[in-house]
């Protein structure tokens, strides 16, 4: 009886040792993975830093200005094209409308470029 218990204990011990070993081994593999991932994250961060630098290099105001002048048919807004809603007087609404804006169409809105509130 005692011998049986002993054998059981020894076998149990061996099994436990094996399991622990296995777990430890897996943990080590995971550790390696972490190191690997951290290195990759670092790499990605460096990549992002380069891309961010490139992004702001491409977004330099002078470059955007040059491109806008080349490809867009837009001009900077003139002061008289900007007005805030509270500055509109009633008489601004009483202008004669062009003939075409008659019949079916809803009365179009007044040409108001509403200035965004100052920051």
């Amino acid at each position, binding site marked *: 009886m005692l011998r049986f218990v002993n054998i059981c204990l020894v076998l149990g011990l061996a099994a436990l040792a094996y399991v622990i070993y296995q777990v430890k081994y897996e943990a080590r593999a995971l550790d390696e993975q972490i190191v690997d991932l951290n290195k990759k994250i670092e790499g990605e961060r460096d990549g992002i830093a380069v891309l*961010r630098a490139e992004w702001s290099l491409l977004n330099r105001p002078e470059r955007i200005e040059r491109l806008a002048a080349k490809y867009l048919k837009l001009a900077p807004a003139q002061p008289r094209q900007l007005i805030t809603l509270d500055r509109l007087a009633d008489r601004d609404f009483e202008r004669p409308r062009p003939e075409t804006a008659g019949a079916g169409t809803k009365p179009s809105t007044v040409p108001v470029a509403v200035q965004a509130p100052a920051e």
Partner: protein
Amino acid sequence: MKALKANPVAETAKANADPRAERVHLARSRHRYRLACLVFAASFLLIAFRLVSFGFAAPEPGSAIPHDISATVHRPDILDRHGRLLATDIKGATLYADPARVIDRDELSEQVASVLPDINTAELREKLQQGRRFVSIKRELTPTQQAEIHELGVPGLGFIEEYRRVYPVGATACHVVGHVDVDNKGLAGIEKFIDDNPQLAMSRPENPEGGESVTLSLDLGVQHVLREELSRALVSYRAKAAAGVIINVHSGEVVGLASLPDYDPNHREQALAKDRLNRISSGTYEMGSVFKVFTVASVLDAGIATMRSTYDATSAIHVGSFTIDDFHAKHQRLTVPEVFIYSSNIGAAKMALDLGVERHRAALEKLGLLTRLTTELGESAAPIVPAHWERINTMTIAFGHGLSVTPLQLAAAALPLVNGGLAVTPTFLPRSRAEAEAQARQVLKPATSKAMLQLMRLNVLKGTGKRANAEGYRVGGKTGTAEKVIGRHYSSSTLLTSFLATFPTDAPEYLVLVMLDEPQRVAASDNQATAGVNAAPTVGKIVERIAPILGVPPRLPEDQRKFDEKVLASY
């Protein structure tokens, strides 16, 4: 052990001849047998133990190639007030050689030179011969160069990853941002300030990338406009230098600062050239007539004169060998607004004398014009104050000669004149209006500030600053044309022109100061060289472009406000 017992039975049957000798032999061999078993068991155990211990051993720290980036420090990013990148770190490789592992020195240097033609092979060979463990060959390699050297496969070469500072916007904000040395240490501007105050980057960890960053009060758009308009002025008026600064009058935040000629901080060696200094904070100048704003303000503030007081400007003042005369001479009695808009030196000198030498000096002191102005930019110059402040000094300083200050200091001193009388120190870091007002001192009466705004607006509408009028943005300002000292005398042909402006004058938001060094008489400025024809229009163009960026709404008089027919039709 059981098998062991079975064995002797067979053997006893075979050799019964000498049972005794047999038994002795058996006993001895059993001992040997046990010993052998023990040795085997022990060695197997040892192997098993070693295996397990290998299994449990921690993985080697790091990987095969050690990442050594200790040579350079990682710096926080520098952002403008809207989070646009002004300076950042990217990683670059440094090529080095380990002489102990080099097989053929000559071959190595030739191979390296084939990729990096600017390498001095003789010098490299000599360095390798000296036998140190680390020979740095080239810093800041491009990724392609690194790949090519890697392809060479020469033993003894290695790379170290190092941080390298890049400034994507180049020269646009160079004088504020500053630059770093080869080891990524701040040498000038905010870069230096960050090194001295490392807590700056830590207090703002909320940027999206999770990295450290420092936000400035600069606006990249404004900065670009300022620099571009200044460089245009530099060319069209053939000036030697141009500089400008734009400050928020309530918070004291500097939203734009440029000084031309400037340099690209990505090429730090350019910064060493002599004329590349930051004229706004490191140069001191006799600023000329813009100083009249301080004279008039201090006289009005002391209650010595009102807007209706008059001063006799019919003839020049003679003091000893000096003669004070007017450039735009009117030869009549002038009211205070007339003294201001015709920029009368005689009038200003008489006003300052009315105030008295001591009180005039105290007023300038209170505005901070006599002491060094310290900001985040380290390299600010101290004003050059006359050693003996006599009557003649008071008279000349009244119109801006005899006292040299930095343009930034002048702009800072002008803030209370337009913001209701609060002395606010300019800053390059974001600051709210409330924060600024909590620190500010009231140095002028609000009524004085209001009167000054009227005078400045009047000057743009009717006086010397007409060309600064940006349609709809109610600019007010004062011109300044100072004669530079050449040798020992003031020269009437070498001028320093400036324009101090604020907009919109009904509720000032920003202050603009532009300075041109030695503008020439060119066709673009009607063959004149005074501030009204070069500095003033430059300010006008700047205001026109920055006001929409800064969110200052334009406002036109009722009669000028009408919609284009074309625009109307398009809606």
